């Protein structure tokens, strides 16, 4: 049996809903996520959906659409823009927001740098990835957001495996992992004090393959960089880096043109590509499925976090 949302439909259900008009699978994970979105809208005054233009946040938007139809999504999207995004992602973001009539807030890391709040990294492994935090916290304060919805998943890494669906943060945005609220059954406790906010993760229980299968089944549009394309890249530490003005490159790091796609999409300086011939969603799902069977070690985000650690070490030396 293939893992697609049609077969997802049956988890925790005695029977799938009887269709009256048209077909459309409803998955168990989808049901859970829609429930979470509705809890956010009901329990918080000023929620916001953190939108990066990546596949996970695009999936969140679709789920939010479903949760509130025929009403519009009752909260804005916010993009913390590092200024080093793939141009394809930004174009996609603007189109999506226009098509759905959504409100988009953009806050720029560049402004935080210009204001002297954060310092641009330099050197071989420099990235603006870590700088986003300051810009995000400032924006939360500026708009008085009490709930920030994000696309993080528990299968991504070990620390995330312990993250709650409603994760309370203090005034400084800090996560106190020793003192988390127990989450029982599907009851979500969103009671907070003034100044606190909650990070909400509606797709906590989805795996990478679940997300891709959902995108496939729902025919959700995603940025073109997720599909195999010819790109100028260079190799470093076993990773495939984009050749770009935003990415530091040594002189001896040779520029190659290769068929690649991106498995996760952050900003250009922290996102590596994989060699791929998958030019459409079916091909991508096949690749992901086969790679999970043979080797999950090919996961680009695993490698990326290793590289990120490497990077910190490197900077300690500089």
């Amino acid at each position: 049996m293939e893992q697609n949302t049609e077969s997802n439909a049956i988890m925790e259900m005695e029977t799938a809903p009887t269709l009256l008009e048209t077909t459309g699978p409803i998955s168990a994970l989808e049901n859970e996520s829609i429930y979470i979105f509705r809890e956010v809208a009901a329990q918080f005054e000023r929620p916001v959906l953190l939108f990066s233009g990546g596949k996970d946040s695009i999936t969140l938007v679709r789920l939010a659409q479903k949760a509130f139809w025929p009403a519009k999504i009752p909260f804005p999207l916010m993009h913390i823009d590092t200024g080093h995004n793939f141009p394809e992602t930004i174009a996609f973001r603007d189109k999506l927001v226009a098509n759905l009539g959504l409100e988009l807030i953009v806050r720029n890391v560049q402004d935080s740098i210009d204001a002297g709040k954060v310092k641009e990294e330099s050197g071989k492994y420099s990235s603006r990835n870590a700088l986003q935090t300051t810009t995000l916290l400032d924006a939360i304060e500026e708009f008085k957001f009490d709930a920030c919805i994000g696309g993080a998943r528990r299968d991504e890494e070990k620390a995330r495996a312990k993250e709650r669906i409603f994760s309370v943060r203090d005034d400084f945005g800090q996560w106190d992992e020793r003192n988390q609220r127990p989450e029982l059954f599907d009851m979500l406790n969103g009671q907070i004090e003034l100044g606190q906010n909650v990070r909400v993760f509606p797709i906590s229980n989805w795996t990478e393959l679940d997300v891709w299968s959902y995108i496939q089944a729902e025919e959700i549009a995603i940025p073109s960089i997720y599909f195999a394309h010819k790109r100028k890249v260079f190799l470093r530490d076993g990773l495939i880096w984009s050749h770009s003005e935003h990415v530091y490159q040594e002189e001896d790091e040779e520029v190659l043109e290769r068929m690649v796609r991106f498995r996760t999409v952050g900003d250009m300086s922290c996102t590596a590509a994989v060699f791929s011939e998958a030019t459409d969603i079916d091909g991508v799902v096949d690749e992901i499925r086969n790679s999970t069977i043979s080797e999950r070690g090919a996961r680009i985000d695993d490698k990326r976090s290793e590289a990120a650690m490497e990077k910190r070490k490197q900077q300690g030396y500089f």
Partner: protein
Amino acid sequence: MEVLKIATAGSVDDGKSTLIGRMLYDTKSLTTDKLEAISKTSKQKGYDYLDFSLATDGLVAEREQGITIDVAHIYFSTAKKSYIIADTPGHVEYTRNMVTGASTSQAAIILIDARKGVIEQTHRHFFINNLLRIKDVVVAINKMDLVAYSEETYNAIKSDFEALMAKRDYQEQRITFIPVSALKGDNVVHRSDNMPWYQGNALLEHFEVLDRKDIYNVGTPRFPVQYVIRPKTEEHHDFRGFAGKVYGGELSVGDKVVALPSRTRSTIKEIYAYDKKYKTAARRSSVTITLEDEINLSRGDMLVKEDDLPTVDKQFTATVSWMDAQQLRPGSKYVVQHGVNKALAKVDAVHHKIRPDYSGIDEDVDGLTMNDIAQVSFKLNKPIFYDAFKEHRTNGSFILIDTQSNNTVGAGFIV
């Protein structure tokens, strides 16, 4: 794809990490990097086998650092099902974590070391899985390789456990015994050649063939209104949809329903999931319902079938699992969150503590400390609409929220 969430509990030395690691390895869910690391470390330690407990080494590192461990979620899948393992530590000080992990699970594994047999910790794991009314429980008798795969040992442990089963409250719970060696891979994912006397399924096989009727109790439908959808657009000017999740049973277009607390009657007009209309909403589906009559409902109200009403009352007695460092005492006030409904509650009486190892009850109690389980009566500031937990897992459970800290401090199962 069906998703099955399995609760496991155990200590470091009973082989739980090895069992989970073995399942990951034999389902080819481990990364190549991870496998290389496991192989290297196993060699360094001088083992002639792969030490799969290293697959969950993040958790081990936590233990070494002395960080409080709670529920960790581990994901893997087969061609048939996606599995989520809710893994909790098994010592008495982690009772609250075990309750939390079990609350979201549909099946459970109780691990027994074949050399030690049924121990106090086994009692507690069983008690909690039974209290939470997990319908399918596997008792995995592990380390069979260290008892020469002895059928006698297996049978002795099985009969000890069966004596324990006589004491359980939830008698309908399905219990399956499987002899395994997580280390050697016997009867975990693949059936073992070392125990020809055992004819049953391997552990993972057991879960693979579980049907939904094996893990869910069908009850009566309850529809708590989560959110009211009023688009007020030109196209949907009069649309008033009640969004929520259907619990316990199905709801269909044409069903005669009663809205609580108003007791107003109406009929289900439409059921939407996104922009599609459906005739029937299945259990646990997130839908939006419209009614034939224009009645005012808000969050926390409930739609039920008119021939099957829940209890509507301002008081109840429940088994409470206490999770906070601050004591629960008679007279203390909390917010009760019952599904999506909330009420203020005052502790009327603490009747007795229940020892979670089947050793009895303690009658003389004045307060609950963390990890206690007790029978407690509450009075509320307004009526809520509930069923007994044994009749309705969702509509019979609630959480307690501290009015000062806003933390979730306890969970309750209404008797």
